[in-house]
Every structure is written in structure tokens, then in C-alpha cells.
């Protein structure tokens, strides 16, 4: 059994796939919670990229940046969930199509 070693290309592929899943999820789903989870997927795709290049260049800045991204993502989740809750209380729905107050 021959195993190909894991190269940065693999990481990048995984990351690109994950990011695409996230983007598509945001674009096609109607439930805001799902949208939110898709956004998290995109964050993690970016994190994989960061960590991969950190390992490649043996430099710890990438690792640290990833940790920051996770922290910011947590904060964003808190704010975002709060907004969702308020929205739900007003509209009694989580459908993103109902969220068109900024319509011109």
C-alpha cells in the first residue's frame, strides 16, 4: 500500500472545497441559522489555509492568526445570534427572503 504524503496542495484543495461548500450554502439556503453555519465553514476554510502555510514555512504567525480568527468568529457568532433572535421575535420567521428592509 502506497500512501502519497500530504502536501500543501491537499490542504489547499480541502480548504477550497470547504470554502465553496460555505459560499454555496450561504447563497442557496433560506434559513438564517444555516447561513450562519455556512459562514463558519468559510472561516474554517481560511483557518486551514493559515495553519497549512504556517506548517509549511515553519512560522508561528499563521497559527496565531488562526486563533485570532476563531476568537473573532466567536464574537461574531454572539452578535449574529443576537440579531437573529431579535429578528425572530419581530418576524416570527427565519426566512432570509423576509429580510429585505434595505430594499430601495
Amino acid at each position: 500500500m502506497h500512501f502519497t504524503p500530504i502536501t500543501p496542495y491537499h490542504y489547499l484543495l480541502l480548504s477550497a472545497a470547504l470554502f465553496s461548500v460555505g459560499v454555496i450554502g450561504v447563497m442557496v439556503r433560506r434559513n438564517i441559522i444555516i447561513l450562519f453555519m455556512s459562514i463558519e465553514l468559510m472561516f474554517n476554510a481560511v483557518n486551514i489555509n493559515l495553519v497549512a502555510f504556517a506548517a509549511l514555512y515553519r512560522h508561528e504567525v499563521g497559527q496565531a492568526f488562526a486563533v485570532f480568527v476563531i476568537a473573532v468568529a466567536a464574537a461574531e457568532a454572539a452578535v449574529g445570534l443576537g440579531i437573529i433572535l431579535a429578528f425572530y421575535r419581530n418576524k416570527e420567521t427565519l426566512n432570509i427572503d423576509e429580510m429585505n428592509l434595505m430594499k430601495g
Partner: protein
Amino acid sequence: MRLIWLLPLIPAAGAAVNGLAGVRWFGRAAAGAVACLAMLSAFAVALTASIALIRLPPEARAYDVTLGPWLPPIPLATAHGIGSFAAEWAFRLDPLATVMILVVTGIGLLIHVYATAYMMDEPRGGYARFFCYLNLFCAFMLLLVLASNFLVMFIGWEGVGLCSYLLIGYWYEKGSAATAGRKAFITNRIGDWGFLLGVFGVFHVFGTVDFHAVAQAVSSLPVEQSHFGELSIICLLLFIGATGKSAQIPLFVWLPDAMEGPTPVSALIHAATMVTAGVYMVGRNAVLFQHAPLVLAIIAIVGTLTALMAATIGLVQNDIKRVLAYSTVSQLGYMFLAAGVGAFAASTFHLLTHAFFKALLFLGSGAVIHAMAGEQDMQRMGGLRRFLPVTFVTMMIGALAIAGIPPLAGFFSKDEILLQAFSKNRALWALGSVTALMTAFYMFRLVALTFYGVYRGPSWPRHVPPAVGGPATLSIATAHGVRHPVDPDAHGLAHVPQHDLSHGPAHPVPIGPAAHAHEWHGPHEAPSAMTWPLMALAVGAIVCGFISIPPALGGTNALERFLEPSFGGTPAAATVEHARQPRADAEPATADQASNGREWALMLLAVTLAGAGVAAAWRLYVTRPEIPVRLAARWPGLHSLLWHKYFVDEFYGATLVRSTFASARGLWTFDARVVDGAVNGSGWMTRTVSWFSGIFDRVVVDGLVNFVGWSADEGSLVVRRGQTGLLQNYLLLIVLGVCVFLTVYLFAR
């Protein structure tokens, strides 16, 4: 003596205590005690100061106290360049002021004590209010008499006017009392106008308002013997002020109406305060008035006419207090007659004696009214001497004193005035003597109608033991259950126990609004708080004449000599002294005896006239009571003229009051038409203009703003299609953009 500035302050403090705290929290006893205590301490201070002053040698008998500056010096134009108008809180105690403070505090104290019992029926707050006003009255009067310049005097002058208004209108719910208060105040204001102009004139001529400085300045000026110069104008204006305060023609109309106040107020106004202010003011400026003989002549004539006119009115009036009121006007006329002939000391002497017997008579009449449960009409009295022995005896003394029967007080002072008038002008003396005759007549008419004859008043329930009522009375008082006569003013709860003592237990007190007035058990003597002041005043009315016995009777005219420094050693007094005083050393004995003989003759004539008046009153009202009715029927015109007080009130009403009302109505019309019209017109204009302005605002300004908004709205029709507000649309665009960008970046290079 250093404490004389306390004199006005003590009653003022009493008034403040009663006025601020008393009307809410004090009982009757506390309010009365505060007021009486204030007067008592004021009297003590006055007495101490007077004794200290009398101990001084005659030429040093003046004491000045300056508390501090009042008005800072203001440069003002006078007749002699620019003067500095300044006033200080300055008081001056001299012999004249001494007499006055003793009268005000002494008689004021007795009246206060009397009022504690007389006003017992008032509600608590009203009782304290009454004593607050009484104290304030005395405070202002003391300020007036102790003032050492015109301005401080003016405060007191206005203050007594204010207090008279408050006290006469004390029963302000009674329309006539409120009207009488207003009348007193307005009439006084007319006099005050003259007084104030006189003060301005004094400053204009002398550049100062201090009495002493004015007297000194005026003594260097020539006497305005035959022309009516600036001094005469000043004196005339000041005298107009005096006529207002002292109720002389033409401003006497307020005094009889002042009877609407409670009786102690009448006593206070008529005896100790207020009406004496005018006489005092003329005496205070004796030197000034001496330099205006024409005005003195006017004063003498006005005084004599007032005395005569008031006495004639007093002959026919039936209201007991009204008779006394006209008697006061008449006696004040005497004082001005004395002042007018230059006998300021005699004027002050009469003021003093009059204060005693007039206070006595008023308080006595109050006791009678109290006994009759508010009845003031003498037609409904009679035979009261059995019921009111103390009141009867004391009022008899007062009547004898005012009638001028020797050796009571009125004899000496009135005789002095008539003597001085005789040496100046026989006509004035003759009119004065006629007035003396009438005085004796109307006073004894009052005594006869009130105390003699048969009882003519309302009857009362008969379960009274006959120990009090005489048989004659009981035979009249037959009807049962006669209600207590309407009694708005005088009847004290305090006497219920006394009734219980003298008449057995009183009826059960009815419940309801009239519950405070116990049932009336016929005329009864007043409580001791009322009789004691009467007795004290009676003693005063007997003895106070002796302080100035004329030399013809072996005396020394002590009061006149005491007062002389206050009048600046007036020339007129000097001539009279020259005519009759033995102590003018170079006098030949014969001339002295001749003048003594003349004085004796005058005295004998005066006493005869008084006796004739008494006898006539006795005959007309006791022995032959049908004569007055016949006389009135025979001369109905004369009787109605006197009964209606010469129609002076009607005349004033038809001329002055009506013209005032007419002009007020004219001004009101002007106000309603022109002023209100202008105001309303400008309001209408504002409304019209603002209507147009509103139209412009709505059409033009709002139109512009709306147009801007509308154009933005319409202009963005196409562009805003892109703004769907849907998150996913935007995201799609972003992703497409990224794809396009990447495509271009990767392949189109």
C-alpha cells in the same frame, strides 16, 4: 429716657406677635394678655421717660435719639439752591411729646384692658386680629408723636390712617362697616395729600424736614402779617392734613361713620390717638404757624365753625355713639380754636382732658351698649342707672367734665380756651360759649335719655329674681320669651357665670349658629375688666384739670409753663401772659386785678351757660319729655337739617363722589373702547397677518421642501431597482464579481 425709641416698638412687637402667631394659635386670654402687656410696658417706659424729663431744668427739657439714617442725602432743588434731602430715624422727647406719650400709652392701656372683656364674643382669630390692630394703632401713634422730623411723623400719620381703616372695618362682613372704613381711609388720604404737599413745601423753603431746624429757621423770617406768602401756603397745606386727621370742616365726615367699629376702637380713635394727631401736628409746628397769622385765623374760624356745627348736629341724634362722635368733632373744633388764637398750650391741655373724659364716655357708652345687647338707640334705653350703677356714676362724671362744670377737668381746659379766644376775638368767643352751652345740653340729653326716665328697651324672660330689676322695669317687661336682640357686636360669653350668679342659671344654650350668644337677661353691669378702666378714667377726668389751674384761681398754669419750650416761647402766649400773669414781674397790681376780675366773670358766665345747658336738658328730657317732640314738630325744617347732619354727606355724595364715579366711568369707557380696542385691534391684525404668513408657509416653503423630496424620489426610480435588500442577491453579485475577476486575472492576461 434713652429708651424712648422703644416706645413705638413695644406695641409694634405686640402687634407682630398677635398678628403672626396669635391669629392662629392664641386663645383669647393669651392674645389679650400680649396686647395689654405690650401697652403696660410701653406705659412704664413712657412714665419713666416723662419723670426723667420733668426732673431736668425747664430749658433743657428735650431729648433727641437718632437710631440711624433712613434716606441717604439726595440732592434736590430748593428755594435757596440745591439742598440735600435726608431723613433719619430720629425721635425727640420734649414736653409736648411727653404729654402725648402719656395720653397714648395710659389711656391706650385702659382701653386695651376694657377691650379684653368687650370683645369676648369674637371668634378666637378675630380677637387676636383685633388686638393686633389696636397695638399697631398705638405703635404708629407713638411714632407720630415722638418723630423729630416730618418724614418719620408721616409714617405714623399714614399708619394711624391705615389702622383706623382696619379697625373701623373690623367687622368687614358687615357692609356698612366696610364702607365706613373705606370712607375714613379715603377722607384721610385727602388730608394726607395736603400734609404731604406741606412737607414738600417745608423742604422747598427750609431745605430740611427736621422740626427743630425748621423752627429755628423760621424764627429768623418775618411774620407774614398781611400777605399770603410761602409760609402761609405751607401752613394751609399742613392744616388741610390736620383737618383730615382731626375731623374738621370740610373733612369731618368720616368720624361719625367711624362708629361702625367696635366701641373700644371709637374710644381709641377719639380719645388717645388719631384725631389728636392733627392738633398735635399744629402744636408741634407752633413756631411755623405763628408766622402765618392769616392761616391761624383760618384755623380759628374753621375750628369754631366745626365746634358749633357738630354741637348742633349732636343735639338731635339718637344713636348714643353718634352723639359722642359729634361731641368729639365739636371738642376738636375747640382745640383748633385755641390753636388758631395762638394758645397752643391751651389746645394741648384740652386735648389731654378731652382724652380722659371722651375715653370715659365712649367706654361708658360701650358698657351701656353691652348691657343692652347691642342696642345703640337712646330711644330704646332709659332708666338704666338702676342696672348699671358704676357705668352711670362714671359716665355722669364724664358728662360733667365735658360740660365744663367745676372742678372737673373740662372746666379748666375749656375755660382756658374761651379766655384766650376772648382776648383775641369776641365773635369767636361768643360762638365758643354757645357751643359750650350746647355741649352741656346734648351731653345731659344723652345721660337723661340713657339713665333716667322709664326703661323703653326690649323686655326679657321674667324668671329673673326681682333683686336686680326695679318694679317699674318689671311692669314694662311683660312679654315672655323675647329673643336676644340681634347682637352683632357687643356681648360677652365671659359674663355667663355672672349671669348665673345674679339671675340664677341661664337658659340652656341653643345649639346652632347662634349658640355663642347666650340669652339676654335684661340690662346688667359690665364685668370688672370693663368697669375698672371706667373708674380709672373717671378719676382722671376729675383730677387732670388740676395740673393747670389758672392764676385767677390761685394756680400757676403748670402745664402751660411746662409746655412752653415746645412751642418756642410763642409771641401770642407771651401777650396773654402779659395780660394776666402775676409772675410777669413789672405788672401793676391794678391791671392784674382787672384781668383777674375779667377772668372770674368769664368763668362765671361759662359755668352759668353749662348749668343752663344741663338744666334745659333735664327739663326737656326728664321732667317734660313731650317738649322735644313738640319742638321738632314745630320746626320740621330745622330738625331735619340737623337730623341729616346739614346734608353734608348727601352734598359730598352728589358732588364729589358722583363726579368721581362719573369720571371713573368715563375712564372705564375709554379703557373699554380705546385701550381694549387698540389691544383687540392689534390682536386681530396679528391674526390676519399670520393667516397670510401661514398660507405662504404652506404653499411656498413646504412646496419647495416637498419638491426636493419628490424629485429625489422620482429621479431614483431606475437605480433603486438594484437595491433588493436581499442578502443572497448581493452575495451572488459578489461571487459573480470574484469569478469574473478571477477569470480575467487567470485567463485574459
